[in-house]
């Protein structure tokens, strides 16, 4: 089992969702986050006082999958979120020790899907 975390551009979320659904990945959670990569965020200016290094809005996806779903999920995110410009985001894949469905108490493979 793996936990896939992806940081993507907010306006690419709908695209990524479509790609995930088409590969039968239907369970995800979505967070609004702020941050910046190498492009160092945006500049804001209030009454002439410059504020640099301000954060950009991003979307953070968390998807827990069984091992055979790792590849399709990563493909879906890349296909859906790539524009080729700076700031498209990143995908992190972490090992997942356990997964428990609260309603039934099931664990492991069955609990994820």
């Amino acid at each position, binding site marked *: 089992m793996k936990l896939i975390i992806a940081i993507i551009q907010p306006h690419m979320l709908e695209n990524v969702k479509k790609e995930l659904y088409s590969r039968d990945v239907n369970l995800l959670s979505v967070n609004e986050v702020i941050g910046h990569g190498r492009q160092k965020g945006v500049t804001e*200016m*209030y*009454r*002439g*006082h410059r*504020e640099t290094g301000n954060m950009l809005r991003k979307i953070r996806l968390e998807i827990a999958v069984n091992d055979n779903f790792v590849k399709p999920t990563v493909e879906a995110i890349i296909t859906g979120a790539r524009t080729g410009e700076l700031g498209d985001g990143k995908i992190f894949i972490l090992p997942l020790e356990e997964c428990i469905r609260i309603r039934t108490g099931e664990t492991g493979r069955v609990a994820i899907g």
Partner: protein
Amino acid sequence: MKKLLLVVIALFCMGSLLFAEETVNTINSGDTAWVLISAALVMLMTPGLAFFYGGMVKKKNILSILMQCFTILAIVSVQWVLFGYSLSFGKGNGFIGFFEWAGLKNIGLGSGPYSDTIPHLIFIMFQAMFAIITPALIIGTFVERMKFPFFILFTILWATLIYDPICHWVWAKDGWLAAKGALDFAGGTVVHINAGISALVMALLIGKRKNTTLGPTPHNLAFTLLGTALLWFGWFGFNAGSALAANGLAANAFMVTNTAASAAALSWIIVEWIFAGKPTTLGMATGAVAGLVAITPASGFVDIFGSILIGLIVSPVCYFMITIVKSMFKYDDALDVFGVHGIGGIVGALLTGVFANPSINGIGKGVLFGNLNQLWIQFLSIIAVIAYSAIGTFIIFKVLNVFVKARVDEKEEALGLDLSEHNERAYTLIE
């Protein structure tokens, strides 16, 4: 027992009828209606100011701004009828009024000495709204870091010891600046320079906010624009209501108010576009308010030409103060009360002495109409208000700070005043 009560009530009614008959003759219903509405318009400016300021602070501090504005509304309303009005407008010496009208005794329902055509009571309420918004303007300088108990005591003392005397100097029958012929139609010196200078002193005394630049750190500029709209709307009561009549002078004040606000909004946009790269909503709103401030003393004296120039001139001056001078001297006047109200008020008071057109109002003749001396009188009134306001505010702060803590500690500041001072949050993370 019942009979006795009826007799008493009948006598009471007769008494007030007799009283009303004596005085009702000079009251004009059109004037009265306009000043009643104007008082309500000016009242709305204080909550409007709360949103103007509230949008410019971090989201953990917006309730403290709203709370301070509404608390001032409550405190000064009571202070005003108890003794504030009498100190400001009552008979006294050139410096301050005495207590003849304390608790509004000897007022009645008829007209008063400041206008024959409206009831004295509505003049009192109209002026109450000015006494309320002036200390409310000051809070913009010490946002995000003042203890609430200190704020309450400061407000009571400042309203009584600073606002009431200066109001008396400029607007009372026996005020010394009024006697000198200083022109201030609706409060350029009394309200804006006064609040702006006090704000600068407070900024220096309370010190900088932690972990931030010297500019505002807005969390919701839509609130700020909403507040600007309410201020602009209320300002028609502030300026056109100051005619104390529904007449041509009021109409002129209304027109120059709107024109100057618009010209100043435009000139701010232009200056910002040139020097900062992009026109901003906050800049446009700030320009509009600066224009409204600058036209305030002039609104009963200048014509359309004067109002456009006042609007065009004030924004670049305020912009320069806020961006260059503030950065140079590094005082944390967080929401630019000094930069907009103090400087805008000074620009407006001086330009009133330049553009006052005697065909608009016979008592005001500016430099452009051959009266050089008016500029000197305006200058004198500005210096007098600056000196008194600065020294008075300094003393009030220092004395109060011996007994009560002025500033929240670092932990409270990081937590935000909404939680540290009021145990509330404006926006919940979890419903």
